[in-house]
């Protein structure tokens, strides 16, 4: 009984500690950055000398980050969704192949993003490309695709085999079962996969450092360089000017709010479209 109480309290302590850490991070960011946050920062691009305390904002980095993460997430969905369904429906008879593929995807997930950045940079040089929005999108898509596939895959694994068999028994082909039934039943997991991938994509600095480059302008075409919020934060945090460092925290608030909005939106969407799912 004493042992039971001890472990319950220990587990509760760890759980609430994690929430406290998250709250602490948000409090520190808001405390340090809120004073520097203003509409100019959100709606203006940097003017001359912005990184030395001059006028302007980080609209270039906000749009660049959104372009790269949305583009990369779309590519990752196009690759990841069929891949996860293929893994769970077409390869259902080949457990060893499934496990091998999962092993490789887990390894890809674990590769540091700077390695993806270096790989993307090598590809850029090979194809004679400059640092650009396209190179950033492709590199981030490579980075987040394994996350997309494995997260969605884990949810598909929890769908009872009986549902799969019920669909086939009605005369569905495997492809129809994958897209009409498994995808529908796994939709909340798919949303989680998109959310996780997007969050990783928008928050990563290392993969875009060499590939997307950095610019004070908003990119209009895919071959122009693009600024990103993580790099804007990185550059501003390194400044010796306290005012600029505060702007780094203000940019962090913007990044956090974007992720929060995407998260809430995704959860509402998931709730709305999973009403018919078998619990």
């Amino acid at each position, binding site marked *: 009984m004493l042992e039971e109480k001890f472990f319950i309290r220990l587990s509760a302590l760890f759980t609430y500690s994690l929430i406290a850490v998250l709250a602490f991070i948000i409090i520190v960011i808001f405390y340090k950055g809120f004073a520097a946050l203003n509409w100019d920062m959100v709606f203006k691009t940097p003017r001359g000398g912005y990184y030395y305390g001059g006028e302007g904002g980080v609209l270039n980095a906000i749009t660049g980050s959104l372009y790269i993460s949305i583009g990369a997430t779309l590519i990752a969905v196009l690759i990841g969704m069929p891949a996860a369904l293929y893994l769970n429906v077409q390869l*259902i*008879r*080949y*457990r060893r192949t499934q496990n091998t593929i999962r092993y490789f995807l887990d390894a890809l997930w674990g590769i540091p993003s700077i390695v993806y950045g270096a790989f993307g940079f090598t590809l850029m040089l090979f194809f004679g490309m400059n640092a650009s929005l396209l190179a950033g999108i492709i590199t981030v898509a490579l980075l987040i695709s394994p996350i997309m596939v494995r997260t969605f895959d884990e949810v598909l694994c929890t769908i*009872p*085999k*009986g*549902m*799969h*068999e*019920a*669909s*086939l*028994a*009605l*005369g*569905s*082909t495997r492809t*129809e079962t994958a897209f009409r*039934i498994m995808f*529908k*039943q796994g939709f909340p997991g798919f949303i989680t996969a998109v959310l996780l991938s997007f969050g990783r994509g928008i928050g990563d600095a290392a993969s875009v450092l060499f590939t997307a480059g950095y610019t004070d302008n908003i990119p209009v075409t895919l071959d122009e360089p693009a600024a990103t919020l993580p790099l804007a934060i990185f550059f501003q945090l390194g400044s010796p000017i306290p005012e600029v460092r505060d702007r780094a925290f203000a940019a962090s608030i913007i990044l956090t709010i974007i992720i929060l909005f995407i998260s809430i939106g995704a959860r509402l969407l998931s709730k709305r479209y*999973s*009403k*018919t*799912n*078998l*619990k």
Partner: protein
Amino acid sequence: MGKPYISTNSIEQLRILRATEPEAVLRVKNLNVKAGDHHILKNINLEIPKNRITVLLGPSGCGKTTLLKCLNKLTDLYRELKVSGNIYIDNDDILNTTASIPDIRQKMGLLSQRPYPLPISIYKNVAYGLKLKGVRDKKLIAFSVEKHLREVGLWEEVKNRLNSPASSLSIGQQQRLCLARGLAVKPSIILADEPTSALDPTSSKIIENLFRDIKKHYTIILVTHVLRQAIRLADHVIFMDDGEIIEEGSPVELFENASTDKLRAYLVDGN
């Protein structure tokens, strides 16, 4: 042996039934299923009479579910299973045919232990198989949905909420929905794998009554562990043990005059 399992009246009725033995709708010849060294089904030979309820009896792990999965080729999902032999439906050997697997599967409705409504509305669940068959006429689909929901006694309960998620139904209603969904694709055979094992007695009784009603139009193969259910429903009984058919015949023959020790022991334990 204990007291008789079936009343004298029932025995007489079953004798009459036996006298008018129907043609076989499904024939299994030399069916073997292996998983590595494990011989799951051993040289199965049987005939399933048309428009009758055939009950597969036997202890857990004797191969009943595997036999059902062979009949609608769901064994294809298990690479470790090696299936050999012949299964004739409408004189077509489904194990060695060029016909499409979905077409073969649509000849057999499947009712599993736990109902698995598809993650769509009640209406779309019943319409799902029809759409797969290429039916596009909305009036025809609506007619068919109503007809089959009525057939399983669910129409009055759901007619005002056809667009509600199928998962919102009670488990007994879900099982009837799954039956309606299966019937909508007009199968000739219904494979029911312990369909009442997850249901309460009232829902079980509804399913049993449904089986009695629909056997005029369908051949039913029922796996059950409930001896009394087998006695109530069976027109033909197949007793299996360790991957083999031990005894086969009418309920009278098997339940009253079991000729093997295995079946006698099973009946005593089951009672």
